[in-house]
């Protein structure tokens, strides 16, 4: 295994593009090292991107949007009060992943590119309308987070492409987001269903919304019908019922030991209602 420490994303991309064998990028390592250990994936070329300037930075831009370096760990996000105040749903989704030790290393981008449909940080990013900057041999492009996963363990990124930043929109006035997941225990488990809701209010009326579901389909989903059920309402009972129905209708889950199809489909609706309630309260100024 060759271990590379490029000083720029262009170099990282070039090394990956020229490699002939198995390539992995290394940020927090909480998936890569487990796969290495279990002999699931032994890369021929391992490209550690942590020597690239800016990968540890959390930056609020002049327009209020955020740029997160790709090696920012979960613990660094939870410790960032302003990020937490703007995007509590994204931060709480990330914070649910693994133990304190894992939080010291695990990253949003690793969680996204690992391609698990149950990735806890991904619904929050999708609901927020976040994008990632992808650097490839021919330059950079910006990709919506929902367009990155292609199926369990797979992404739409081409050979030689590497995610070089996470871009989160400006929070704006009267907005709020939330992420909830169902697990059969209280901590250290994989989502059976996850749901993120992000919305904006004008007074009591929801003017904009995005809803994302995890662990109920081969990829994390952006559920436009569920968002439609919220927009224009004051989150009254009828809106909540319509939201739950749309969320459940979007589900195409697997049946496994952690949850049946029927259970996951039902819980998706329940979590959507609860997450919408929290996001709505946060958009109204509640902490």
């Amino acid at each position: 295994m060759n271990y590379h420490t490029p000083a720029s994303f262009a170099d990282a991309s070039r090394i990956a593009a020229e490699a002939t064998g198995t390539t992995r990028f290394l940020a927090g390592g909480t998936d890569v090292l487990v796969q290495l250990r279990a002999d699931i994936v032994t890369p021929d070329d391992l490209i550690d991107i942590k020597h690239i300037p800016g990968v540890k930075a959390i930056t609020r831009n002049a327009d209020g949007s955020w740029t997160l370096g790709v090696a920012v760990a979960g613990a660094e996000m939870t410790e960032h009060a302003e990020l937490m105040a703007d995007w509590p749903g994204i931060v709480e989704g990330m914070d649910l992943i693994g133990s304190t030790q894992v939080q010291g290393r695990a990253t949003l981008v690793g969680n996204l590119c690992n391609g698990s449909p149950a990735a806890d940080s991904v619904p929050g990013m999708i609901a927020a309308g976040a994008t990632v900057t992808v650097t490839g041999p021919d330059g950079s492009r910006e990709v919506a987070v929902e367009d990155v996963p292609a199926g369990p363990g797979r992404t739409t990124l081409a050979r030689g492409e590497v995610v070089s930043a996470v871009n989160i929109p400006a929070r704006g006035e009267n907005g709020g987001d939330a992420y909830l997941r169902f697990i059969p225990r209280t901590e250290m488990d994989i989502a059976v269903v996850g749901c993120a809701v992000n919305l904006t209010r004008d007074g009591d009326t929801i003017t904009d919304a995005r809803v994302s579901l995890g662990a109920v389909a081969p990829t994390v989903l952006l559920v436009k019908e569920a968002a439609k059920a919220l927009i224009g309402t004051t989150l009254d009972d009828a809106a909540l019922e319509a939201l739950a129905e749309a969320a459940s209708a979007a589900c195409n889950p697997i049946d496994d030991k952690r949850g049946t199809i029927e259970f996951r489909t039902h819980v998706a609706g329940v979590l959507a209602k609860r997450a919408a309630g929290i996001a709505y309260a946060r958009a109204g100024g509640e902490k």
Partner: protein
Amino acid sequence: MTRIPTRTHVTTTVNGDPVDFLADPRETLLDCLRDKLGLTGAKEGCGTGDCGACSVQLDGRLVCSCLVLGVEAEGREVKTIEGMAEGNDLHPLQAKFIEHAALQCGICTPGILVATEALLKKNPDPSEEEVRYWLAGNLCRCTGYDKIIRAVLATARDLREGV
């Protein structure tokens, strides 16, 4: 053809001391600490980030050393359980763990001590719930956890009261 594994020269700081070693890039920091530096306090319970027995601090951040490559330690600061006591003087957490019998076989203990030291630095007055969540990634098959939690809370109280 057998590929001769390339070895990388790693220079790092462990418990304040400059050290260096040669590592195959596939070797974990845990393996390097134990097999190359003779620091066997960090234990391998699982090797996959599930048990916390290998906990160390990397640049002041609590991590599983089984999920860090040895080569990633280049130029960083590692702190292990061996750096916790001052000579023969035990750290208050270590003394309190003995007093409370918060260990039996002891395999999980170095990781739990390193993890709780990091907690108390961040939060000198944790609630029981906060301690339990913080230590959710440190598994113990012997104690049933209760004595560990009591020992941590008692140490935190003593440290706050300057005992």
